[in-house]
């Protein structure tokens, strides 16, 4: 509630605070309205709330933040806390304890709990207690690294934690925890008989509602239920009204239970930003003002001045077009340069990975030096992971993030400003995403006796829509798309959907059987042979530069060959214009990957290519050698234009008839290094890894199977692992990346599924914080 009266200096609030406490005692912290009232009162009159604060925390069940009981009621609540600890052997909140007990006593448990109810803490306990292998399913790859690093800390060193399914390091591993996305779920069934799985945890299980991914999710749930009926299955959702739908829709067998927890751990204060840049209070629950209670100052500045953290939710476009620069300039004063040596190490790592420097300046890196973060889906996963560690370590102050963060990162902020109000999907999905986002407003700090709250800021024009979506009850369907007739689907994903529905995948080639059959039946041997002949010289793949040096006719033929192979696995004969452009652009990147280039090297090469670096160098040389005058040099330089390059786009997409270019009619001097990073990463990720890798590898592997041409197997390995080197392939299966090969390979004497045998060279890296974390389970 928001009441105008509270802003009168002499207002008497004791009785009202009593009534809020009574409500918390009886119902728990389930009413956002109550928590909002406490938050506003605390922000205005901290001294009025202070005498009640310990009581409030006891009533909220946040026993980890309470101090010793000082009154009768606290004594009784302390009894609850002690009993919970004795029941669960853990410092759980009542909600965590309830869920924990239900998980223990059920075969399947599906629950809903708001963001920041300490779900991770509960999950960690389950992971620690598990006796066998565990599969954790998360909705996005962005979440993988966060999960892996958090889980690795809480389980023993003899528990292997991997972000993909592989059975390695057998000698040093007692059990495995695999954290995967549903897309990686197929890999499980290759190894499932070698594993002893006793727990499946599905986090953010509302993914079941997402069309194609939802199908994959449901299919995975059903398949594991069939294969491992005795293993526990736990489904967690935020803000879902009917978590039982998960059990119903996938017909889970065994004792099932569910719970819809609505208890929150922090309160929120809502503000709108007016066009004149002033801020006013509002309440989406019960607003007894006329929208005329002004917040004194700029809340973002206030939070930053108090050393707090702010998240500004923006569109990707506003990052790409530098619209966010205006906001950065406004708040950079509150974010001075960071001097902390550990923070600088994180920044150095990002700089190293991206290959940025003075000439190739990256805003990601430069802003990080001020504790300002840019976070979106086209920032390389490894960088996002370092950025997330940087934020978790408390160095980030201001974070500009897109929707990737909603499902990707579990980090709370003191203030969340929703500057971009575009959400996707059904009304349920839009409402869920909004609630998930504002759920990040308000950090529960470790300080005892402190009721915590956060700020949510929205633009005035979105107020009505915001309230509507916030109050909307989100539900998930009790029917799976797998059981519905007549799917409204695009032709491009039809094969996959049918394969999911009919469980008709080639597990080894990771493709629908129908697509494998098409590859086998197609006439692509000539194309494959041509590619192999063109790409291999003396048994080694040619470089990206060598690729550009071959004749245009030959290059066009290679492109056509790739197009032919790619289209052969689809149910059509030709690629459309946009698809062809993207595929052509991907080929040199694929070659660079094959040669084991690091991401920084690939971006750097592409940046040079796009910015006509050779042409620039030629002009400079002419100037230095006196062949041209300075005015001519400048005139010629001014004429230079960045090479057009189609922006990355997932394939196949029949509707993508014409490609878009990120770098249209631009002087090379103005080419943003960050844009090249984003687009190149999208190519590596969306195009090569997710679109091309499986059909290409399958085509080359099938060719090898038929002809025994070892170059085909090598190319399949190159595409799959970026290398054909046995040791490097094994190291990648152990979770190391291309960036690690240079320092790691000389330290390895031998490697197989049982263990890595290191030599003495490894000793020099054991003191390095980041490298030792990578190595700790293998040493």
């Amino acid at each position, binding site marked *: 509630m928001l009441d105008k009266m509270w802003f009168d200096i002499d207002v008497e609030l004791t009785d009202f605070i009593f009534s809020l406490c009574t409500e918390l005692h*009886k*119902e728990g912290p389930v009413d956002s309205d109550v928590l909002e009232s406490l938050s506003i009162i605390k922000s205005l009159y901290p001294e009025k709330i202070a005498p009640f604060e310990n009581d409030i925390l006891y009533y909220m069940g946040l026993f980890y933040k309470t101090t010793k009981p000082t009154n009768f009621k606290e004594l009784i609540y302390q009894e609850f806390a002690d009993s919970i600890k004795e029941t669960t052997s853990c410092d759980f909140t009542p909600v965590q304890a309830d869920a924990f007990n239900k998980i223990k006593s059920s075969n399947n448990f599906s629950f809903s709990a708001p963001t920041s109810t300490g779900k991770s803490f509960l999950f960690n306990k389950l992971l620690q207690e598990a006796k066998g292998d565990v599969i954790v399913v998360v909705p996005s790859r962005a979440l993988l690294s966060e999960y892996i690093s958090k889980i690795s800390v809480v389980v023993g060193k003899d528990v292997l934690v991997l972000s993909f399914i592989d059975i390695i390091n057998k000698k040093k591993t007692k059990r495995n925890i695999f954290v995967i996305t549903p897309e990686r779920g197929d890999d499980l069934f290759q190894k499932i008989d070698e594993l002893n799985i006793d727990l499946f945890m599905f986090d953010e299980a509302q993914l079941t509602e997402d069309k194609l991914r939802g199908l994959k999710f449901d299919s995975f749930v059903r398949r594991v239920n069939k294969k491992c009926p005795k293993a526990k299955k736990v489904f967690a959702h935020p803000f879902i009204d009917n978590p039982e739908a998960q059990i119903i829709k996938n017909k889970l067998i065994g004792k099932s239970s569910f719970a819809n927890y609505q208890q929150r751990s922090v309160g929120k204060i809502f503000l709108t930003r007016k066009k004149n840049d002033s801020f006013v209070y509002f309440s989406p629950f019960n607003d007894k003002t006329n929208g005329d209670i002004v917040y004194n100052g700029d809340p973002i500045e206030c939070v930053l001045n108090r050393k707090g953290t702010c998240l500004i939710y923006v569109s990707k476009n506003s990052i790409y077009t530098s619209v966010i620069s205006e906001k950065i300039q406004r708040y950079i004063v509150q974010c001075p340069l960071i001097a902390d040596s550990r923070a600088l190490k994180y920044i150095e790592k990002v700089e190293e990975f991206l290959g940025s420097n003075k000439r190739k300046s990256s805003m990601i890196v430069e802003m990080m030096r001020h504790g300002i973060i840019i976070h979106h889906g086209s920032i390389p996963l490894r960088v996002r992971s370092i950025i997330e560690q940087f934020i978790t370590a408390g160095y980030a102050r201001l974070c500009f993030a897109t929707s990737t963060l909603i499902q990707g990162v579990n980090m709370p902020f003191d203030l969340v400003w929703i500057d971009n109000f575009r959400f996707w999907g059904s009304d349920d999905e839009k409402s869920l995403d909004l609630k998930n986002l504002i759920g990040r407003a308000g950090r529960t700090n470790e300080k005892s006796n402190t009721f915590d709250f956060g700020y949510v800021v929205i633009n005035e024009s979105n107020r009505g829509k915001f309230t509507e979506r916030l109050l909307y009850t989100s539900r998930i369907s009790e029917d799976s798309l797998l059981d519905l007739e007549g799917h409204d689907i695009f032709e491009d994903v039809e094969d996959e959907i049918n394969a999911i529905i009919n469980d008709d995948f080639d597990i080894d080639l990771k493709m629908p059987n129908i697509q494998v059959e098409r590859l086998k039946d197609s006439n692509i041997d000539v194309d494959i042979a041509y590619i192999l002949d063109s790409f291999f010289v003396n048994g080694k793949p040619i470089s990206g530069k060598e690729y550009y040096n071959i004749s245009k006719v030959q290059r066009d033929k290679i492109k056509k060959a790739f197009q032919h192979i790619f289209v052969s696995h689809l149910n059509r004969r030709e690629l459309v214009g946009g698809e062809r452009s993207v595929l052509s652009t991907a080929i040199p990147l694929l070659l660079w990957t094959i040669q084991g280039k690091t991401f920084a090297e690939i971006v750097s090469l592409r940046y040079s290519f796009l910015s006509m670096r050779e042409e620039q160098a030629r002009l400079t040389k002419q100037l230095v050698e006196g062949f041209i005058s300075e005015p001519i040099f400048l005139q010629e330089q001014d004429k230079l234009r960045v090479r057009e390059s189609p922006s990355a786009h997932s394939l196949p997409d029949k509707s993508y008839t014409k490609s878009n270019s990120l770098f249209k009619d631009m002087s090379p001097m103005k080419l943003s290094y960050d844009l090249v990073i984003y687009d190149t990463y999208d190519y590596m990720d969306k195009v090569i890894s997710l679109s091309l890798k499986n059909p290409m590898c399958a085509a080359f592997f099938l060719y090898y199977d038929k002809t025994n041409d070892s170059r085909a197997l090598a190319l399949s390995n190159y595409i799959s692992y970026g290398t054909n080197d046995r040791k490097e392939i094994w190291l990648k299966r152990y979770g190391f990346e291309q960036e690690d090969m240079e320092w790691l390979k000389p330290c390895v004497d031998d490697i197989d599924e049982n263990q890595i045998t290191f030599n003495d060279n490894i000793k020099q890296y054991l003191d390095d914080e980041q490298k030792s974390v990578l190595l700790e389970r293998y040493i």
Partner: protein
Amino acid sequence: MKVTKIDRLNYLKPEQYPNCDIFCLHVLIDDLEMIIAEMRVVIAGTSWINRLRSIDQKIYTVNSKKTIDKIVNIITSRVVNELNDSVGEYMISYTAQKMLVDSFNHFRLPLAELLKEKISGNPGFDFHTISEKKLLNFGEAKFSMKETPKDLAINQISDFIKDEKDYGELLSLKPLVDSLVIDNMDDGKRGYIAAFSFNSKSIDTIFKHALNSDAMKNIGKYQEFYLIAIQVC
């Protein structure tokens, strides 16, 4: 719990406070453990946590016994500290209310009042009941490990009357009481309860002093007054 009703005329002349029904009650708690167990249930049983399956039932039973023992020890230890005072004050409130319900057919107003915590600035009365005459009674509880804080209780009531604290509280009580009670309140009819721990030798001296104090002049104008001395055996 044993209740001894003592005639007011032992301490007052008949013409003193003729319109006020005054009851002098000496309560002897000989079943402290049971009283504490009931007090505990009032809080534990109404909390949202009690509705969850957070706690193993066996552990719950064992721990509730432990809590009761702990509180009994607090009361009997006579150690003065913030926690012990709070526990004692609850015991006085609870026992007085319970006694009025059991012996005088009062209706006990629920939890909200029991939840009230003594915060600096004395926010209001500690508990409330409704008498058979449909009068709202405002209760003040005072606890001491060693003293008999009767003066604190009745002076507090007198001050609250002057500050019209009772009217202030009526607003939050309205939803809990029927219209007759409200009508009586509007007509200026109501009652007061002074409950306090008894640690003295003579109950007569305590009651006599209390009823002849200045504060009584304010309290005696109203329809009911319960003077309750509570002693733990």
